[in-house]
């Protein structure tokens, strides 16, 4: 059985950055011509996904049900565009299928469902991910499995009470095999994050988690933070990611209404060129 990234060796940062660039290329390709969507969040989380899937996570794309796999739980189902991009990059999905993203009848809908290979939960209703991840982590500990659970959720989801119920639960049940990846991109449906949720890192620390805060678009910082989250010390781990929606494509970074961004059909080629020049 081919399993990736266990135990993680030293990080190949240029290779990981190349993966992240590929993910962004794929997402722009998937979004092209669709007029609107969650491309900004996808571009923002791309570095984290590259670090997870090509450095830290243990999985076998040929055997998605492998019992000893690490679980990556994407709570923000609307980040589906990024999830499918990384699942294709990792070998779970065929690249040829990706342009069907969001189309009627596609098995790659705009929000994730758990019947897609490599997707661990039904996303879409925010505030569901962390609690399920806690349950998974508890079961893996109960079975004595070495697997870990990585749960991505967003700053907007910190407004859901269920997230804090789960935050307490993770500490109570000593889920040191759980790593929260909190995407603080500063946006939600109606615009900028509207409720006072800061200081995020201090809150998780106060709730009994080992917490670090990093620039979520800095690959070296991501890799270091993930390495620091491996300790089996009885405490869950939180990595607060400060990400920029649209990262890598300055026009999208500057665009209003970044949560569900509008893009004219005529713009895509220019955006793709921007991505290449930014990384060039």
């Amino acid at each position, binding site marked *: 059985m081919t399993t990736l990234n266990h135990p993680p060796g030293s990080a190949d940062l240029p290779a990981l950055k190349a993966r992240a660039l590929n993910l962004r290329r794929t997402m722009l390709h998937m979004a092209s011509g669709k007029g609107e969507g969650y491309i900004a969040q996808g571009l923002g989380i791309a570095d984290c996904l590259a670090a997870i899937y090509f450095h830290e996570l243990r999985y076998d794309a040929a055997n998605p049900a492998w019992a000893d796999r690490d679980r990556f739980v994407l709570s923000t189902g609307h980040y589906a565009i990024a999830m499918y991009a990384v699942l294709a990059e990792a070998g779970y999905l065929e690249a040829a299928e990706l342009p069907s993203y969001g189309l009627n009848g596609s098995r790659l809908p705009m929000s994730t469902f758990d019947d897609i290979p490599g997707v661990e939960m039904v996303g879409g*209703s925010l505030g569901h991910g962390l609690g399920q991840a806690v*349950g998974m982590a508890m079961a893996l500990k109960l079975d004595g499995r070495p697997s870990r659970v990585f749960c991505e959720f967003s700053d907007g989801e910190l407004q859901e009470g269920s997230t804090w119920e789960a935050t307490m639960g993770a500490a*109570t049940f000593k889920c040191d095999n759980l790593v929260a990846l909190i995407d603080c991109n500063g946006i939600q449906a109606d615009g900028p994050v509207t409720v006072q949720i800061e200081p995020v890192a201090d809150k998780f620390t106060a709730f009994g988690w080992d917490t670090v805060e990093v620039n979520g678009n800095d690959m070296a910082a991501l890799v270091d933070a993930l390495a620091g989250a491996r300790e089996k010390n009885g405490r869950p781990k939180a990595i607060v990611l400060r990400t920029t929606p649209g990262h890598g494509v300055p026009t999208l970074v500057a665009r209003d209404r970044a949560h569900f961004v509008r893009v004219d059909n005529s713009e895509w080629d220019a955006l793709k060129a921007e991505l290449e020049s930014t990384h060039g």
Partner: protein
Amino acid sequence: MAEPLHTGRTRGMGELIDIAGKTTELAPFGTTLAELGRERPEIVGLTADMGRYSDILPFRDAHPTRFFNVGMAEQDLIMIAAGLSKVGKIAYCTTYSVFITRRAYDFVAISCAHSKANVKIFAGMPGLVNGYGATHQATEDLNMMRGIADLTIIDPCDATELKQVVRAVADIPGTVYVRSLRGKVPVELPDSYRFQLGKAQVIHEGGGKVGIISTGYMSARAMDAARLAAEQGIASSVLHVGTIKPFDTAGVIAFAQRFDRLIVAENHKTTGGLNTLVVEALYDAGIMKPLIKVGLADSFFECGSQEYLEAKYGVDLPRMLRAILEGN
């Protein structure tokens, strides 16, 4: 028998009540789950600070490493149960019906039912079985839960059935919502009774012109009323609908066709629960017969003793008897 101290006041939720003339069994849910847990190591038990009041403590005592109290956090209860199930566990979880349904509905729907999570929810104190008022009385839980796709719903009659259901749900794929019975639970059905998922069963065959369709512990009350009515010369039969979803449409129609008039009895509002299901089935089958609804009004209910509340809101034995004898 000593003078009952419990009449005339709201009782403590942990208080165990002897019911006159009934054989009871203590904590059939928890004791059966503890037994089953010995046979099935993949079973885990959870509660949201309602271990004592949901009868799951025998499981905790028998399998302490597989029991988790998540505290007063019903959304977390359901999410954690779903997560446990995704790593191969069968998660039995407990709290009161009101908190599962009203508080954690989205989580039951999406984290569990939509996800086909192997979660078995034993919801305590369903309907009007609690004197703490509307906050603790899940009088619309069937209505709410039947709206969720891919969810199995069971409303057991007594200890005999509940014990069988505890075992049966372990092999029912996906999420199951059970209206659990706690404390000293009456034994009403014969030993020969066998729970069958999705099958309504005639539990009192008295012939006659009156057919009673009932669910939950109201099926036991229906049997009591049918026996008393027979002593007064009015024969009737009782169909117990133990599974609310999937609903046994064919069984209900076949039963209804045998009688001149029908009574539907449930420990639930008459809107959205068994009565609604029966009326829908009969209408679709083109059956139009006199039908009396014995159940709760669309209201919030007050605090008080069980006997007081059942009499006041029209779900007690005299109400059932009147429906059979007088047809109103």
